[in-house]
């Protein structure tokens, strides 16, 4: 039901399961949603909800049937052709694990450009660094010489260096302190405006998701419980009990509360 198939993501009845011992664990069960061009779609859920797995499936990092993920209206098989890789990039959660420990920032940003034979690499790298608020003094440093916030900036720069139309963000600020998180969230908001990116943002933190996203899907145990616009979420008028529970819990601890049980 798409009027403009540009930079649109469509997830259609996605199922992902993993082998665990002798059985299989269904990480994602029948998830469907649509993200229109330029929108920021949020997926919020607790651990084990399958939110990261959905993102992995959109990126082709876990096996999924090609009919389940459509980008710009085209079905995307798990193995992608090189040109399709430029459409979509990913920012990972752990700033300490998403950069190759033995490569300088310059090398990390250069490689995607080399793979896709982009001209003027130096200029592209310098521009990418400036865009994320890093200076030339960071260009030839190794990841272990950078702080968590700086590493995430490099990760974002890497994701943007090929000028993708879609950005997938998997809890990019969960491992960061609150003030650094604020800087990164501001950065993401600015980049999204400047580049009209389509994004899918996954987090366990309702306030963070609400800050950046227009529409939010709430996931639990592999399924989408409810999808709602951010204004509704902020007003606390969620449809499902689980969402309301999440909203209440995110307000912090209250001694006067009635007793929830484990």
């Amino acid at each position, binding site marked *: 039901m798409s009027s403009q198939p540009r930079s649109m993501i469509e997830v259609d009845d996605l199922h992902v399961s993993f082998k665990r011992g002798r059985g299989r664990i269904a990480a994602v069960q029948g998830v469907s949603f649509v993200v229109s061009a330029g929108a920021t779609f949020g997926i919020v859920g607790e651990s084990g909800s399958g939110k990261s797995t959905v993102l992995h499936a959109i990126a082709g990092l876990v096996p999924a049937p090609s009919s389940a993920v459509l980008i710009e209206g085209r079905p995307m098989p798990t193995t992608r052709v090189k040109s399709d890789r430029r459409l979509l990039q*990913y920012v990972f959660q752990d700033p300490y694990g998403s950069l190759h420990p033995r490569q300088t920032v310059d090398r990390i940003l250069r490689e995607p450009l080399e793979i896709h034979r982009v001209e003027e690499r130096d200029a592209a790298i310098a521009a990418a660094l400036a865009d994320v608020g890093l200076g030339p003094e960071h260009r030839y440093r190794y990841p272990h010489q950078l702080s*968590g916030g700086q590493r995430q900036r490099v990760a974002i720069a890497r994701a943007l260096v090929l000028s993708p139309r879609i950005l997938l963000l998997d809890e990019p600020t969960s491992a960061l302190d609150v003030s650094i998180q604020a800087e990164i969230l501001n950065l993401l908001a600015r980049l999204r405006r400047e580049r009209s990116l389509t994004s899918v943002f996954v987090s366990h933190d309702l306030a963070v998701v609400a800050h950046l996203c227009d529409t939010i899907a709430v996931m639990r145990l592999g399924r989408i419980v409810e999808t709602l616009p951010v204004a509704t979420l902020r007003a606390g008028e969620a449809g499902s009990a689980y969402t309301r529970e999440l909203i209440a819990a995110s307000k912090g601890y209250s001694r006067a509360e009635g007793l929830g049980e484990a």
Partner: protein
Amino acid sequence: MNDVLSPPSSRFAPSGRDAAPRSQAQALLGSALRRAAALRRNLLATIGLAIVILLVVFAIAAPLLSGGASPLDQDLSSRLLPPSRAHLFGTDDLGRDIYARVVYGSRATLTIVALVSIIVAPVGLAVGTMAGYFGGAVDLALMRVTDIFLAFPRLVLALAFASALGPGIDNAVLAISLTAWAPYARISRAETASIVRSDYIAAIVLAGASPARIIFRHVTPLCLSSVIIRLTVDMAGIILTAAGLGFLGLGAQPPTPEWGAMVAAGRDVILDQWWVATIPGLAIFVVSLAFNLLGDGLRDAFDPKSS
């Protein structure tokens, strides 16, 4: 955007050169210097390194350092002389100067160690990284072959190969390499299997990198430190295997001096003329120990957590 102020966590993170490197070359140099500094701080490892360097110097400059004596000149009137000013380590049963033979013998040792390393590390890395990256049937096939080579006791297998191939240093190198590569495949595979699960590999896959690029340029550099460290620790074993082959008459052939063969030759007279077998034995011991100490130091210097 304000983030140029120094971030909190870097106060506790060690940083070598604080001035920012301005090019890739400078970055590499800085990294190498930091590792060298870490190594230098370990006294035993530095001693090990010094001895290894000495080995190389002796091998290259053997004619200069042997004090003019030839390792091959026999003088039957001076057989089995004890250490003296004329003959620093005494003479063997054919009257040859043992000091000169030990110095020249370092060439055989160094040749074997260098050649074996050059063969064994790349082969082990190639097999291991491919097995770890592709998994499945490739992993199964490659690892079973590795297992077969791992199952044999090194010296016995080396002996078998050397006997089949015939005596001589080249064949000794080949025989030792055939027995020594398997652990490197196993190490590389284990490292690769865990590296491949990391986010930075996923990121480069998402950028469109081919498996070849990933294995050569991303995975292998990370396996390299484990392989190098294992290599230095293995040196002792390789030297001893070579000595063992020499002892049994395979490997370097007389009259070329080779420490293991020298120990064998001194066997018969060990009780009365102890120096003939003991001195070359000590040489083997010192060099093996040096490599071991160096390997330990390298392991600490290369430890990603501390670098």
